């Protein structure tokens, strides 16, 4: 099966990310860029399916700067067959929609039956490009995929989608399709030395605006639906309990309700008889709707 995997090179979000004068600045002596973690899982899955099928090609496609070739080479070293870098100044500053537009144009020139994408990029964290892309390619899309069972004879897939609380939804989807994959799908393989050497010499196809026969208005910032007006440091997380009556903290309210069995302290500590402690905790959990009642 011919499979296309969309790959994005992102800064390592564990590195120091700061906001300076309204712009993101990644600090450190060595700034490492990595393949977006979920894209790595997409590559792994593509390789696995290809191995099961015994035929076909895995092609990586990335929209990025020339530096993104590093990411593509890593994917090639893992075992992907071909790589394509969509690179043009005009592509820059695009939102999920504008990115999808370019990807769609490029991917439609590559014979394929399946497109795999990481669901969410660790930098922009939108998780939408895959859905726009699927619409543009005219294929069904399934998001949140954490398990793929391929039925190569009937050309369909049985998939598990990650839901909240560890639940899974099981769906069936025909091929061709686009899947966006979530953490938990697999553990991506490491490139082999042989793979790295092979990848080093592999030619990565480049495509720019003109080669894709697109116009500047369709792509990048110009082609985006969403405009970022500014970037700011994160708001500190409000560590506190939401209380309908703002004059009293939830804790004081709890204490006021319960009478007796509690040691009156200036601090916020709950102490005393374990029975009362337990009762107060339960009351708190009910109030916070963690437990029914």
């Amino acid at each position, binding site marked *: 099966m011919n499979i296309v995997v969309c790959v994005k090179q992102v800064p390592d*979000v564990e590195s120091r*990310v*700061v*906001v300076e004068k309204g712009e993101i600045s990644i600090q450190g002596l060595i700034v490492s860029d990595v393949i977006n973690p979920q894209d790595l899982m997409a590559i792994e899955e593509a390789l696995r399916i290809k191995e099961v099928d015994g035929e076909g090609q895995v092609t990586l496609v990335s929209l990025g700067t020339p530096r993104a070739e590093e990411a593509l080479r890593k994917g090639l070293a893992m075992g992907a067959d071909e790589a394509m870098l969509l690179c043009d100044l005009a592509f820059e500053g695009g*939102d*999920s*929609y504008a990115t999808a537009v370019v990807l769609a144009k490029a991917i439609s020139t590559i014979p394929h039956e399946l497109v795999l994408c990481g669901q969410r990029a660790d930098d*922009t*964290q*939108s*998780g*939408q490009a895959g*859905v*726009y892309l699927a619409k543009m390619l005219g294929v069904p899309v*399934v*998001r*949140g995929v954490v398990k793929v069972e391929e039925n190569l004879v009937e050309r369909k897939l*049985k998939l598990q*989608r*990650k*839901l*909240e*609380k*560890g*639940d899974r*939804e*099981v*769906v*069936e*989807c025909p091929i061709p399709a686009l899947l966006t994959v979530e*953490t938990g799908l697999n553990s991506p393989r490491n490139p082999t030395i042989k793979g790295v050497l092979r990848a080093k010499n592999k030619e990565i196809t480049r495509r720019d605006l003109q080669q894709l026969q697109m116009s500047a208005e369709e792509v990048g910032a110009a082609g*985006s*639906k969403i405009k*970022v*007006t500014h*970037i700011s440091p*994160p*708001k500190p997380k409000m560590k506190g*309990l*939401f209380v309908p009556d703002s004059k009293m903290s939830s*804790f004081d309210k709890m204490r006021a309700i319960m009478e007796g069995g509690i040691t009156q302290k200036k*601090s916020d*500590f*709950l*102490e005393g008889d*374990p*029975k009362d*402690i*337990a*009762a107060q*905790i*339960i009351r*708190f*959990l*009910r109030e*916070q709707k*963690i*437990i*029914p*009642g």
Partner: protein
Amino acid sequence: MSTGTAKGVWVLIEQENGKLRDGSLELVGEGRKVADKLNEGLTVVVQGNIAEEQMGLLAQHGAERVLCVEHPALDQYYVEVYSQVLSDAIEEQAPSVVLAVGSINGTDLACRIAARLGTGLVTSCDRVDVDTEGNLVQVKPIYGGKAAATCICPADRPQMATVNLDALELKSPVTGRTAEVEKYKPDTKTEKPSIQNVGFIKGDPKAIDLTEADIVVAGGMGFSTQENFKMINELADVIGGSVAATRRVVDEEWTTLSRQIGLTGKTVRPKLYIACGISGAIQHTMGMKDSKLIVAINTDRNALIFKIADVSVVGDVMQVVPELTAQLREAMAQGTKSSTDDSPETVSDAESQS
């Protein structure tokens, strides 16, 4: 769609068996805020029917109109069908803003609608607002939460956003408000869905990955022995939580590495983290400090864990945990019995409207 004629704020909510799902009322309140600033009407959209007094709640939180969407093909929730039906409704009625709950399926739905309509969507917003030009302002975390991006959708309508459940706060309901309920039965000829729902696997808190657990019950060296540590399992069982541990507990082999939280273990952000007999050294708290609610039990009132706990219990886990387990067992049993009844508050609110 161009910006000119679009008007109205729509809020898409989810229901299950007639009851509103988490985040619904909070999102309606958020929609109300936006509608007020835009001086436009607020419509709440839900699939199927919801109970009377839930309608009342929606009105109290600001809904002026509730659209109950019905379509034969929706009998089984095929997300493709629902997104098509809603997209058609949106195209027809042209709201200027559409908000959805940032749950997994809520986000899925919003992405599909945005793609069908060719409009802009910002997901996982921590906040939405309105700027001086009447644009919806969407603020979302980026770079793993280390920065925030403020966005607008200047040229396309509707402007769409999904809002994080964590970021939503329940506002005070206003009694006396009513909403117009409209059954929306489009005769959309729906495309045959490609994707078929074939099953559902419920997550077992004992087996799921800790990063997916809603409730985590963690134990530390405060238990002194492996035998004592086992009481964590009962507490977790009773509350439907997953068991976790500190590095030292794992080193002692009281439990497996997969249950380790912290610098050399997993990072979790559950709704509730109960830290039993855990001192709260930074190597551990790094892995759980962003939990929504933290209950900590420790004999040492100077324990670092209390700096990040929402409920700080100074006590011996050997006494508190069994007591809590026993009382929770009763509380959960009671809770399930009465879950089908209306809660007293809701009934009296509904009554006070008339």
